[in-house]
């Protein structure tokens, strides 16, 4: 490679804090080549929905009198409850891997040495992570929605507007988990520790705290409270644990996405590489 050396003025793109499509594509490459992660995400999203509706179909075929059609609004509601939880877990895995992957492999310093803005390196992770996560979660939702509608038989099927609302709501539940994991793992620099902390928070601590009435209005600050407020009414039949205004829910959701991302960005820009 005897290329002649030419000293050129640096393109402005190198100094910009936002990522180029090439950077996003490189981040996506790093993610999609992690077979274990992709497999885990599939197992957490698409696989349970397929298994659930196959089992329901088999049961219905075996004993139609005892087991109703696998579709229906009721089953859709139940599968959405599972899917939102599992999608949040998948989002944590993907976010934590993106946040600490370069640091863990020791490649972060190799990226910094290119002179590219650290903020651009960091922000490229957001679209790359969503590009992996959302199609898988979306696929799982499509399976759920299709099965609940097509296999509803004589039962009430979810309406089109409910499906659209539920799809948007699923994205709203998944995105904050992803950004939280990305921010926290970038802050801590450790994938394993971040996953442990966030699963504990997401699956145990936060659901418990939301139920503690003694915390009063403080509970509005939890992302679970906000996502429940934004959930389609047909999916949260028992009502929400923390009544709050729509505006407050939107602000809380935004804060849960923006603050961890900002903390991660700050640490990425200031840490010794």
């Amino acid at each position: 490679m005897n290329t002649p050396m030419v000293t050129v003025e640096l393109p402005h793109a190198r100094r910009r804090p936002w990522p180029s499509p090439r950077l996003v594509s490189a981040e996506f490459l790093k993610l999609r080549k992690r077979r274990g992660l992709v497999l885990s995400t599939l197992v957490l999203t698409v696989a349970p929905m397929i298994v659930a509706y196959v089992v329901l179909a088999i049961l219905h075929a075996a004993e139609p009198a005892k087991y109703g059609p696998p579709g229906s609004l009721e089953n859709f509601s139940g599968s959405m409850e599972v899917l939102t939880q599992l999608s949040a877990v998948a989002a944590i895995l993907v976010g934590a891997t993106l946040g600490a992957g370069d640091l863990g492999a020791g490649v972060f310093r190799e990226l910094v040495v290119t002179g590219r803005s650290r903020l651009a390196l960091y922000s490229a992770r957001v679209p790359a992570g969503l590009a992996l996560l959302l199609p898988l979660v979306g696929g799982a939702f499509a399976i759920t929605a299709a099965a609940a509608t097509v296999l509803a038989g004589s039962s009430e099927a979810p309406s089109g507007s409910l499906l659209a609302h539920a799809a948007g709501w699923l994205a709203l539940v998944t995105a904050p988990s992803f950004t939280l994991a990305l921010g926290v793992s970038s802050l801590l620099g450790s994938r394993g520790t971040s996953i442990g902390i966030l699963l504990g928070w997401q699956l145990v601590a936060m659901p418990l705290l939301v139920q503690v009435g003694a915390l009063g209005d403080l509970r509005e600050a939890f992302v679970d409270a906000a996502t429940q407020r934004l959930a389609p009414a047909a999916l949260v039949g028992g009502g929400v644990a923390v009544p709050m205004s729509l505006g407050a829910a939107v602000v809380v959701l935004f804060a849960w996405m923006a603050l961890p991302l900002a903390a991660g960005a700050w640490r990425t820009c200031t840490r010794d590489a």
Partner: protein
Amino acid sequence: MSAPYVVETSRLTKRFGERVAVDEVDLHVPRGSAFGYLGPNGAGKTTLIRMLLGLTNATAGTMRLLGRPVPTERSAALARVGAIVEEPRFHGHLTGRENLRVIAAAREPEAHGRVDGALARVGLSNRADERVKRYSLGMRQRLGVARSLLADPELLILDEPTNGLDPAGIHEFRDMIRGFVTEGRTVLLSSHLLDEVEKICDQVAIVDRGRVVMQGSIAELAAGGEQAILIATSDDERALTILAEHRAVASASPAPDGIRVRLQTEAEAEAAADDIGRRIVLAGLAIRRFEPARMSLERRFLEITSRLEEAA
């Protein structure tokens, strides 16, 4: 117009709490040279490189890379700098080619077009599509060089690049580095291996306990500031008598491989050497050896560092 020095530092300092890792270093790396940054382990070599590359902040002092002040214009400067810092690291789950593509994405668009050439240059074309976790240390080092070539660098900064390589790999690496210099690139090579620096570099700075204690060409440093020649003749005893009478000779003493002749500091070395040779021949002696006396860099290095230890 290109700056004459690709790296310039002035009173560059890095402290970790009370400990001073880099102590007011003034460094000037001339363009187009292979420059050795030589010092024992823990002397602050890697810390200086990390500051130059923006991996850690300096506590005090200024620096310029390729004529550009850093950190102000670091991004622009690093666009034409390739570097291996300590052991080169990669994503083990990606292939060699994919790892280069990841780095190329962070560089200018043309970097993508350099991936295949860089792999070929380091002899990894055949293994480029294997996952890096299956690579040997030597292959990783070569992939690290390929990665640094994606910048089409004017300056290559290599921190202990031959660590872990076998003798054949080290030899190959030396040839590669000299090849880069021949192409007009500058190589800043940090090492604790005197032999390596002596064989690869033409300029050197010796660093000890965070301070640059000496800087110059290998020949200058090896000469240790004195002008000396090594002579062997058919009759060294008679030659010593002749030398003792020569006004340009400060001292002449028997050495294991002839006579070591130290010239007066004000003497014109070349003319004095010519005259000494002429007189020995006129005296009827055969000259078997006549060459500038060089201390090995190792001896010079030990001399400098032991002097520092005594002073401490």
